[in-house]
């Protein structure tokens, strides 16, 4: 009951965000950024939190989505929905193709290979200057109005926020459905005891592959929205630092919980926004956040609450 109320309150807060966020001195685009990162991290959490595959190179698919969307707008056709679809496919298909290389690995090795594969895309984008803009990033495109027949919806920052919220809702619905399905239950079983699931006759590798591919599609989907939000994308969107940030956001919120990453994203993005405005040493503070979370609250903020409730 409390859970249902909490989730209802969350949706109301999100729907009303363009009204209350400017009132507390912030801006709607920050809300869009939070939701975009939430899509990415919740997608990644299918892999990390629910299947137990530690991908530390997920920014690659986020960035591929972003570049896919940006380049579609710039070189192919000025259509926002097409950009989202193309970008999502680019990142998702890349993850699907690379899945077989990582699906057999576990633990540390899985993490190392995903990091290194991420770097391949990073350098490909940085060095393919003429098309991607290299180090300077890809600019010169902008999100286009969305047309429904004769009706054109201009994507100003409020309307764009609602587009992002719409996409968030779709992604949440899909991921929730997947986790309730036999596929989702198998993922959790693999996380809990991979060998036992293997002995039950399940082809574990295929399920890990599926998780990797789906996480890739969802992250790339978020990446496309990120490119549209800023009308810009840069190699930083594929960098392993962003991959690490995604993982810490998940852990910060609580990786065993479906909405945990959203909470982690809110705390992390707000903290980063605030710290970088008050100190030039914000990187050290972010680093300290990493260390403190690992040492003091490895189960994330939601984990802390759960322990409180159980104790009470």
């Amino acid at each position, binding site marked *: 009951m409390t859970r249902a109320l909490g989730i209802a309150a969350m949706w109301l807060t999100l729907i009303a965000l363009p009204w209350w966020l400017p009132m507390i001195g912030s801006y709607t685009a920050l809300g869009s950024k939070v939701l975009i990162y939430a899509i990415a991290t919740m997608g990644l959490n299918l892999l*990390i939190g629910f299947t137990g595959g*530690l991908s*530390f190179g997920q920014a690659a698919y986020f960035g591929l989505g972003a570049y896919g969307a940006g380049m579609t707008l710039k070189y192919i056709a000025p259509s926002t929905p097409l950009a989202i679809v193309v970008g999502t496919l680019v990142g998702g298909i890349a993850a699907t193709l690379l899945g077989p*290389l990582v699906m*057999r*690995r*576990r*633990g*540390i*090795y899985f*993490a*190392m*290979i995903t*990091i*290194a*594969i991420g*770097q*391949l895309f990073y*350098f*490909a984008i*940085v*060095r*393919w*200057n003429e098309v991607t803009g290299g180090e300077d990033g890809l600019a010169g495109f902008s999100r286009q109005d969305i047309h429904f027949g004769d009706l054109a919806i201009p994507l100003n920052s409020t309307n764009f926020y609602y587009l992002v919220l719409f996409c968030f809702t779709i992604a949440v619905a899909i991921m929730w459905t997947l986790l309730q399905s036999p596929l989702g239950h198998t993922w959790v079983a693999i996380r809990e005891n991979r060998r036992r699931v293997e002995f039950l006759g399940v082809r574990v590798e295929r399920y890990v592959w599926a998780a990797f591919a789906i996480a890739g599609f969802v992250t790339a989907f978020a990446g496309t929205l990120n490119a549209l939000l800023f009308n810009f994308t840069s190699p930083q969107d594929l960098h*392993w*630092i962003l991959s*690490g940030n995604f*993982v*810490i956001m998940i*852990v910060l919120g609580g990786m065993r919980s479906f909405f945990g990453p959203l909470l982690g994203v809110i705390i992390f993005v707000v903290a980063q926004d605030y710290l970088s405005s008050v100190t030039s*040493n914000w*990187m*050290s503070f*972010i*680093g*300290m*956040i*990493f*260390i403190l*979370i*690992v*040492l003091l609250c*490895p189960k994330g903020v939601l984990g802390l609450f759960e322990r409180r409730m159980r104790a009470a």
Partner: protein
Amino acid sequence: MMQLLLFNSFNGLIQGVFYALMALGLALILSLNSVINMAHGGFLVIGAYLAYTLMPYLGFWGALIAGPVLAGAIGLVVERVLIRPIYKRTDPLYSLLLTFGLALIIEDMTRTIWGPQGLPLEIPDIINSPVSTEYFFVTGYRLFVVAVTAAAVIGLYLLLRYTLLGIRIRAGIRDLETTSALGVNIYRLRALNFGFGCLFAGLSGVLAAGVLGLTPPMGNSLIMPSFVAIIVGGVGSLLGAVLGGLIIGLAAGITTTFYPAASEAVIYLMMLIVLVVRPRGLFGQEGLFE
């Protein structure tokens, strides 16, 4: 053309030496401490900058020794304070995040203390002159780098092969629980091992600073290829890490001659090929981490 190829291959090989030293330290820590040390690039930077700072007092030779040793000592402290509390957690996620945070702090602190701009590391003239005019790129310093690295690798081999400490480290890598049951203090063993790993990172840093100069993010550009070196060489094999580093350095160098834009990407492509053709790497044991 031939000379250009030689020039780039030699440059690549020198780069590969740095990868190899980094990868060796990473592989040591990975095998016995079960930690992917994302802060390894940070220890490289610490070693390099401390050597730079101490050089006016100790001279080049003193700094060459003091930098890596201090990096190793800081590694010991870090292991004791931060890494030891999380050995119990079997999920590698936590050590990865912790060292990642540490890497951010080290890079930021380096920038605050020594400034964001690059600094040169002065090398004594005796070892800095070209060996011949035709092969101007073969400077004495570069040969010196190769010699020091070879000495360090051989030294580590002898340590692991013949000393009690080395035998214990190898036993711990094979089976930590049994080693502990036989009365070895595995906490001290793992601490020393972590220190050794950081010492190698520091050595790589000092040597690299002489060629590439000092910048706060210099560790970042060396740590990722070192991961690749380990994967290509084979996880669990120290020899593999060293050879993997040299191979990818050389490959990057050769690629520079023909298609410079792909010189970074090529090592990751090589890794993909190795993963497809021989998933355990060139010298890796079968079934490890699979």
